[in-house]
């Protein structure tokens, strides 16, 4: 038997609150924020009033999912695709997204993947800054 570490709601709630604060403190469009576990399954979610109804929710989820499942921040994933001349289609799933704004959550001691945070609603760079503040609120 083998066991894997799991992110709890306490951590997810802390990161969600920090990301929401970051979004409030930086002027810009409303965003959606998703926190997923190591398998990319949703743990906590919040969407600000007026966020893009077609894109913000869906892409926040996809960014968190991509970060957790590809085990890297989505900004790095974009770079990896570029440097290896691959496209998102090569992975054979429509659940992934190649767009900054998703950050991976790993345990410091052993690098175990705990989950991901995804933010969408503003520019990719702004989304990423908000997600990074969410991650910075956690000591993992």
């Amino acid at each position, binding site marked *: 038997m083998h066991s894997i570490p*799991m992110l*709890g*709601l*306490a951590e*997810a*709630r802390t990161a969600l*609150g920090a990301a*929401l604060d970051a979004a409030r403190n930086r002027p810009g469009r*409303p965003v959606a924020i998703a926190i997923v*576990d190591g*398998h990319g*399954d*949703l*743990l*906590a*979610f*919040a*969407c*600000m*009033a*007026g966020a893009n*109804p077609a894109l913000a*929710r869906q892409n926040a989820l996809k960014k968190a999912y991509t970060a957790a499942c590809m085990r890297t921040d989505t900004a790095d994933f974009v770079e990896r695709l570029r440097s290896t001349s691959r496209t998102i289609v090569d992975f054979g799933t429509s659940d992934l997204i190649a767009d900054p704004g998703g950050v991976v959550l790993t345990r410091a001691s052993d690098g175990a993947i705990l989950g991901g945070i995804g933010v969408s609603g503003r520019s990719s760079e702004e989304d990423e800054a908000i997600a990074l503040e969410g991650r910075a609120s956690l000591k993992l």
Partner: protein
Amino acid sequence: MSRFARRFGLYERPVLDVEETMIALDAMVATASMQSRSMSVAIVDAWGGLLGAMRMDGASTQSLQYAIKKAYTSARIGSNLGEFRDRLIERSGIVNDFGDPSFVVARGGGVVVRAVSDRTVLGGIGVSGGSGDEDQAVAEAGRAALGL
């Protein structure tokens, strides 16, 4: 302005802010914790779009999907889930009659959230992980936390 324009013209519709969503989510998690239950809770807007969600430690991953669908059904039907179920049974209807594959039927754990002033639908709350009665009590605690 003609009567027609007043009845069918541009109008204002209230929506939930993320601050209100977080208050309701936190209240529901606290209520479930007091009952020593691991549950999933979700809030959607009047269109059924996800506004907020939380999955407690130990709650199954499926329970959150179910909670989201309960919230979605309550908001889109504009009715508490138990009452929707009673109406279906009374009229010998089935959920497929509505043609929306995302609708679910459950005894409890789904409530519609309406504005106090004019009963406009603001959204729906869904809870899953306990019995029908337990889910319903947590969902109602979420609505009560909004003062609605």
